[in-house]
């Protein structure tokens, strides 16, 4: 071994050991755990552990709450991604306007919610969304709309949580879009302007194609993010009302650490993994198509 090689191993071995112990090994064990009936009995005494094959998955598919959780999570993603991406893009376009001054100031202010703690800001929003004392309903009252029981009405709870999530995360994609917008070819923009293209036409035919790949990538990555919602419903609604905000991860947490059905919960984790893997493969495909990879 050369001196350089020795130094290299000295540098990489500690972190690789930790990655292997707290990430790779448990991930492999998750596969094993998913085919056992690991529960509170096995937790007390290993001899109670049995191999159940795909039994956990069969049970899951017969559990209405699991389907509820999947549906809720899909709804969160389907509604949340357009909402979050739309807000980010609107903010980025607004900030990109040549006449806007103090851009760094606005950018930092709009990004601020992203770095806050989910639990703390969810607490704040729980209060913002309060039926009687919340600012949201007060604002609605101004425009003459009746009070909405945001976190208590099964139909309003998902939009209510999405309002909070959008507020919290839009700054992230806004920054990414701002960078993409600064790369829009200005000579093309100028040519379009000289040809008399309207504002919308310029956006549609110059800006959009230029930032399209970024937009797509952000959307796909957001789907993966929305699949992992947990703290928001945990703090704001405890999965209710009528289990409308129980997400896949919330279901996994309850199954695992409330009822101690760790085998069953592992099966949920594996399904979540497959879903995220599918999204990531789509992302890689898009990446290759636009030659980023």
């Amino acid at each position, binding site marked *: 071994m050369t001196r350089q090689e020795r130094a*290299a191993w000295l540098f990489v071995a500690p972190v690789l050991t930790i990655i292997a112990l707290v990430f*790779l090994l448990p991930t492999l064990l998750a596969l094993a755990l998913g085919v056992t009936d690991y529960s509170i009995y096995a937790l007390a005494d290993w001899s109670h552990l049995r191999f159940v094959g795909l039994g956990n998955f069969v049970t899951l598919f017969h559990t209405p709450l699991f389907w509820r959780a999947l549906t809720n999570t899909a709804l969160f993603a389907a509604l949340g991604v357009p909402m979050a991406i739309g807000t980010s893009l609107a903010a980025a376009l*607004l900030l990109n306007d040549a006449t806007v001054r103090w851009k760094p100031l606005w950018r930092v202010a709009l990004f*601020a919610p992203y770095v806050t703690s989910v*639990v703390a800001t969810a607490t704040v929003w729980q*209060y913002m969304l309060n039926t009687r004392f919340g600012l949201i309903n007060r604002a609605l009252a101004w425009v003459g709309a009746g009070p909405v029981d945001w976190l208590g009405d099964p139909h309003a709870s998902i939009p209510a949580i999405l309002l909070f999530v959008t507020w919290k995360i839009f700054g992230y994609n806004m920054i990414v879009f701002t960078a993409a917008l600064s790369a829009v070819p200005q000579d093309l923009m100028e040519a379009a302007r000289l040809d008399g293209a309207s504002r919308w036409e310029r956006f549609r035919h110059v800006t959009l194609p230029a930032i399209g790949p970024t937009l797509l990538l952000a959307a796909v990555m957001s789907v993966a993010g929305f699949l992992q919602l947990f703290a928001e419903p945990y703090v704001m609604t405890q999965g209710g009302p009528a289990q409308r905000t129980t997400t896949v991860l919330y279901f996994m*947490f309850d199954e695992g650490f409330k009822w101690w059905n760790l085998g069953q919960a592992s099966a949920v984790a594996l399904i979540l993994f497959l879903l995220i893997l599918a999204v990531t493969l789509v992302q890689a495909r898009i990446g290759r198509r636009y030659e980023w990879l």
Partner: protein
Amino acid sequence: MRPRFVRGVVANTLVALFTLATLLPLAWMVTVSFMPRGEASSFPPPFWPSRWSWENYYELLVRREIDGAFFDYRVLPALWNSLAVAALATLLALLLTVPAGYAFAKLRFTGRERLLRLLIVSLVVPGQVAMLPLFLIFRELGLVNSYAGVILPGLAGIFAVLFVRQATLAIPDEMIDAARLDGAGELRIFATIVLPLLAPIVVTLALFVFLGSWNDFLWPLIILTDQDRYTLPVAIAAIGREHAAEGELMMAAAVVTTLPVLAIFLALQRYYMTGMLGGSVKG
């Protein structure tokens, strides 16, 4: 340039209003936290306290004797726990990942490319998959309800290693080779030549790790069972389950949790923003 002037006024006003709306919840969090008890639960909901009072912070943070028994929400211990956990996690993560990232970029060793590929592939696996078995492993090792148990998973910094590697690639090889020709050892090259050049990256990474650890919720919720060991988010969630109706108290708790990280972010936002775009560090 008259239309341009009008457009400027409209655009700037829109941006200002949008920013105002975004910051409103944070501002309200602060003003409500200073309201006297019960004021936030009046109709219509007030934005400004009728009188500024510290009583919510006092109740939240100070241990008091009630009917002969001591009572407190254990927010202050949680604050120290969060601070210690985040600081230690940051320090250890830097110590582990920065040299590794450098080695992956600039040092030749057998298996380097294969290990690198393995790291990139494992980015696909979400952390939640490892959580349940990890809990069982930590249980066997006696790490449940310990700070080591909270910190350890965060030290498996795959993103951080790749992030440092990406930044290190920009350092010219000639510089490192010249030092080698001059007879400097590898450790010395790393410490005196590479590390100073990586300083901005190290600050960025430290910021990411610190904020990530401070805001982390699911894993501490799983691994910590003893109230006195709770980190702030876990403590706040627990208080919220019992005192959700006491808006002023909860807002004070939210301020205590949010303000420190906002302050750090504002002070170092330059690093954060460039770091976010430069590497693919998970947000």
